[in-house]
């Protein structure tokens, strides 16, 4: 067997046997669940007006639009107020369960169904963040995104121990494909939005930021003006946005650059969240960036673990955690730090 073929087989074996970025996708799942929950929570007071049967988009018109689009929404089932309240609150609970890590991947699928339903109920409210969320959740279903940051359920373990070994051997390939899918998706998002910007006159002129930050729907009075009145900041912000977006995949392909690309992206989106008031959009992007930060997240958790343990034992004297845990935690981190093929 030639060396090249052997190398290829090794790579394939590795990809079929080892789960990559488990910590990262678990973080993605948690944060996407939280953003979904906040979609319901932030509009809780206006829910009847926005989504209810007697709201601003009448139930009949909404139902025919859904059928026309060839899709579904749980809100089409009945025009009674009780059904609406039930679906809305059940959706909210499903999102909370995803955040807390209860219910496993079945729960995540249920959350997607409710989320899609509420998105269809009033599509004009949606932005790129919601678009990314409904694309990425099905990809997350392939991954072991409940392995970390989750309230572990004994039930899930019981089920998984009864899964036949043939199916279980598919776990790693499916997981890894799911992670790669999310990585490709986020790269597509950034590159397309970067290349579209390159074509725009205001982006070329280095003044796009000036124009966007003045639009009242996307401005933060008292802060946005500090940015758009500063010529240098406008220029730097506009050009660095485009360059960052276009070159993001390159940053992800080079393992040494990967965490930096992800951190830059998180910084970029946090500033969008603050300056433009697009919290949901910003956090959805950050959630997807987390898959590139599995190693760094592991290191951060290992560093804070002793502190957390001390705090816990401080709160409950005499009930300190068993000494086994630190070893397990560092072992897990070690695994996460192996350079990943994403």
């Amino acid at each position, binding site marked *: 067997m030639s060396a090249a073929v052997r190398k290829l087989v090794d790579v394939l074996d590795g990809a079929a046997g080892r789960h990559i970025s488990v910590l990262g996708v678990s973080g993605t799942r948690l944060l996407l669940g939280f953003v979904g929950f906040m979609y319901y929570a932030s509009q809780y007071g206006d829910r009847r007006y926005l989504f209810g049967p007697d709201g601003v988009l009448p139930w009949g018109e909404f139902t025919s639009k859904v059928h026309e689009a060839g899709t579904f929404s749980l809100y089409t089932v009945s025009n009674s107020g009780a059904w609406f309240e039930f679906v809305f609150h059940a959706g909210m609970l499903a999102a909370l369960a995803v955040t807390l890590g209860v219910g496993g991947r079945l729960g995540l699928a249920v959350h997607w169904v409710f989320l899609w339903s509420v998105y269809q109920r009033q599509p004009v409210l949606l932005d790129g963040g919601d678009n990314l969320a409904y*694309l990425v959740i099905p990809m997350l279903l392939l991954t072991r995104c409940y392995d970390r940051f989750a309230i572990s359920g004994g039930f899930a373990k019981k089920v998984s121990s009864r899964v036949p070994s043939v199916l279980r051997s598919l776990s790693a390939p499916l997981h890894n494909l799911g992670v790669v899918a999310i990585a490709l998706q986020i790269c*597509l998002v950034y590159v397309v*939005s970067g290349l*579209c910007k390159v074509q725009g006159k205001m982006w070329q002129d280095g003044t796009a930021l000036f124009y966007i930050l003045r639009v009242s729907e996307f401005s933060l009075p008292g802060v946005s003006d500090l940015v758009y009145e500063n010529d240098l900041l406008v220029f730097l912000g506009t050009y660095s946005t485009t360059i960052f977006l276009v070159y993001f995949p390159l940053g992800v392909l080079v393992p040494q650059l990967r965490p930096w690309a992800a951190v830059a992206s998180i910084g970029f989106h946090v500033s969008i969240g603050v300056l433009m*008031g697009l919290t949901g959009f910003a956090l959805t992007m950050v959630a997807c960036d987390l898959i590139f930060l599995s190693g760094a997240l592991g290191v951060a958790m290992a560093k804070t673990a002793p502190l957390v343990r001390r705090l816990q034992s401080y709160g409950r004297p005499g009930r300190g955690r068993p000494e086994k845990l630190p070893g397990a935690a560092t072992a897990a981190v070690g695994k996460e730090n192996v350079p990943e093929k994403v």
Partner: protein
Amino acid sequence: MALLVGAALLGLHFIAASFSQMPLNPVKLRHWDKVSGYLDPYFTQNWMLFAPDPLSDNRGILARAKCADGSTTEYYDVTTKYVEQAQNSRFFPSRMSRLVTGNVQQINGGDPVLTRLREAEKEKKKKEIPLMPFEKTSQEEAVRFLSRYSLTQMPGVCGGKPDQVQVRVYVQELPPWSKRKDPKAEDKVSVQDLKWLKAGSLL
């Protein structure tokens, strides 16, 4: 084996997704139906995000009503309240303002192919291409939505029993970059009045 099959499927999926995000070109025009047939509705995506031309003006609506006695009311500002609400929160702000901006966009915005065609015809000084049936429906939907929304935002108008409602769409262009330090620079405001609609037909 499973890995290879999965990777191949994933590759095909992302080829379709990337295809849908290309700029308008001959290949896209020819195969668009097939690709969107696969992607829509669950994989539909749009990553233009503030590009190529970002939003640079304030758009909103005013509304007035005609009462049963034939009198016409003043214009009500039914936009600013929710824009301010959005400005006042940085933690998952209310999205109510998008009810207006999203539908205003739906009135003006449209199909990329038709937009290009109309621009070309305009340059040749030919007669403007009339609205396609699907454009008309989408516009009418947006107009009805904005009118209905306006009615809900002025509950006390005409003693609570307005007969008709009219929406005025405004575009407020802010001074351009070149005039950012000119104290005399003013906003340019243009308005478009939509047709009167019977209040009873909206609910």
